[in-house]
């Protein structure tokens, strides 16, 4: 039943994507879904692109490993939507409408008037997108291999084929339509898995009692991770989310800003519902292992799959795997579109060439991007997880100051942008590399350190300039 359900779901997604092909009449449709998004489509598309497979697989695993402290990663979901609206929505929406911007590097060029900053941002986005997309493809391969009882590479290729088919054919229009379906599947799946997981563990009270009697630190507010690491996660994911290009990009697609009035609280409620799976499965599996019902996991990331295989009925397993595939694909399609735009437009313009501004080139570069991600996934297998971690940190450190502060502060200049991009990119890459090699000794994670340093660099250079400096902030 489960393989048939998942195959049917994949065919359905591909069909939805192909159905939207006719709706792509120009670059604005292909990259910005024609700027026609209403409230619910914006909410579901934003939520599903933020909530990757990590929430289903990595989150419960991290809870199993470090306890409640892991939850600081998603805890800021309750208010980041409001920050996104206040700081990004209006300037990005207006730049898309009035300056014809289609991508984040377009916005940076329009705002700072600096081709170096725009090109630097394009390269940072491309690096992050290839790494992130490779992680999503690998994760999808693992899940499809489990469900379809095949090899990981067959799973990767099958998943990539479906994703590439609808992303290439339908561009962002297809991504948004499928995101709406995928977001709805994710919400239903996470809510039911949460209820089932809590029930299997004997209820919140019993789960809590078992964990408290065996390993009480797990239910402390910092878990086993420590307060500095948890607070750094909180800051990184609250503020760093503003620099994620696939999320910020959604603000450029909104039809009318008036549609955003209820966006923050609806987004918050849907993200809270989605992150229930993190709490439910993570705490239930920990309690079942500590209580002796379940053998200790070989690897924390097995928490959700072991739980489903051992306890869930077939229909819930099918729904859960559909939810996981949805989460992975909805993040993957946004990255694919953002990456294709960088290859088709921003890289060419940075080199002083004419951007390849047609739907045909968008499709061609989508295929190129999937090829790059597959090559990356194959050639640096052990580094794919590292690339995924680096991706978020790189986007956060490189882009957050330029977008969250720079779009709202007239005194920010091209010099601030260049300083921040340089400090953010170098410190993110160096920090994650040193950490991977085992030489990083600080409790604050390298990605958070890079974000803080990059914000400081942006402010110091901007505040150090005189008021009559080369301000190019459009009338926002």
């Amino acid at each position, binding site marked *: 039943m489960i393989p048939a359900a998942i195959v049917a779901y994949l065919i359905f997604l591909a069909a939805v994507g192909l159905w939207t092909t006719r709706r792509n009449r120009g670059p604005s449709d292909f990259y910005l879904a024609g700027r026609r998004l209403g409230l619910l489509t914006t909410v579901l598309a934003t939520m599903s692109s933020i909530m990757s497979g990590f929430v289903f697989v990595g989150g419960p695993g991290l809870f199993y490993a470090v306890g409640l402290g892991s939850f600081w990663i998603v805890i800021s979901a*309750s208010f980041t939507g409001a920050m996104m609206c206040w700081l990004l929505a209006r300037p990005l929406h207006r730049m898309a409408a009035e300056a014809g911007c289609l991508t984040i590097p377009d916005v940076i060029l329009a705002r700072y008037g600096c081709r170096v900053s725009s090109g630097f941002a394009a390269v940072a986005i491309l690096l992050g997108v290839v790494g992130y997309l490779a992680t999503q493809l690998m994760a999808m391969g693992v899940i499809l291999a489990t469900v379809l009882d095949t090899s990981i590479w067959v799973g990767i290729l099958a998943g990539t084929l479906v994703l590439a088919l609808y992303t290439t054919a339908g561009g962002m229009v297809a991504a948004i339509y499928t995101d709406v379906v995928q977001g709805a599947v994710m919400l239903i799946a996470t809510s039911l898995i949460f209820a089932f997981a809590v029930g299997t563990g004997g209820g919140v009270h019993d789960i*809590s*009692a078992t964990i408290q009697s065996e390993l*009480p630190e797990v239910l402390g*507010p910092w878990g086993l991770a420590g307060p500095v690491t948890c607070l750094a996660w909180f800051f990184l994911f609250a503020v760093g989310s503003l620099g994620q290009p696939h999320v910020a990009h959604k603000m450029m697609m909104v039809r009318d800003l008036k549609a955003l*009035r209820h966006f923050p609280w609806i987004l918050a409620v849907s993200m*809270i519902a989605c992150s229930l799976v993190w709490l439910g499965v993570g705490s239930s599996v920990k309690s079942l292992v500590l209580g002796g019902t379940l053998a200790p996991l070989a690897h924390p990331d097995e928490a959700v799959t072991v739980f489903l295989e051992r306890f869930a009925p077939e229909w819930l397993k099918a729904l859960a795997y559909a939810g996981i595939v949805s989460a992975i694909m909805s993040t993957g399609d946004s990255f694919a579109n953002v990456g294709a735009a960088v290859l088709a437009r921003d890289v060419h313009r940075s080199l002083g060439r004419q951007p390849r501004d047609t739907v045909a080139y968008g499709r061609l570069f989508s295929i190129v991007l999937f090829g790059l991600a597959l090559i990356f996934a194959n050639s640096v297998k052990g580094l794919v997880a590292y690339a995924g971690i680096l991706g978020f940190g790189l986007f956060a450190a490189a882009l957050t100051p330029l977008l969250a502060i720079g779009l709202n502060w007239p005194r920010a200049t091209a010099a601030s942008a260049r300083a921040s991009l340089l400090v953010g990119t170098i410190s993110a890459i160096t920090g994650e590399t040193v950490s991977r090699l085992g030489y990083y000794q600080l409790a604050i994670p390298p990605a958070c350190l890079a974000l*803080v*340093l990059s914000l400081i660099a942006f402010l110091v250079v901007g505040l150090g300039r005189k008021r009559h400096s080369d301000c190019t902030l459009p009338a926002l």
Partner: protein
Amino acid sequence: MLWLLLVALLAMLVGGIFSLPALMATGAVTAIVALTGLKCPSRFLLVAFWVWLEGVFLYLVFQSHDLTSSAFGLPRPALLMLLGVWLAPVLIWPVGFALTFKRWMGGK
């Protein structure tokens, strides 16, 4: 707001490097509020958010060892973390955004 943001970030940096959770918590909350203050049309929303989160964070920093059971059998700090940092902020900023939406749209 930008000078406040800079000071808050420096506090976070010092708190993060030298493992000082109270400084780190204050720096993080203040930085988020100062950054949002660039465009948030209501000082009340900024102050309410800062006071609420700062209070919860300081409680968590200094009382994290408290294992007294409370609702659902959860230790008191865990319950406060979930209610105070995860759920309650929805009522401050996202709902506050909807309530002050006209002011934000009008740019007043």
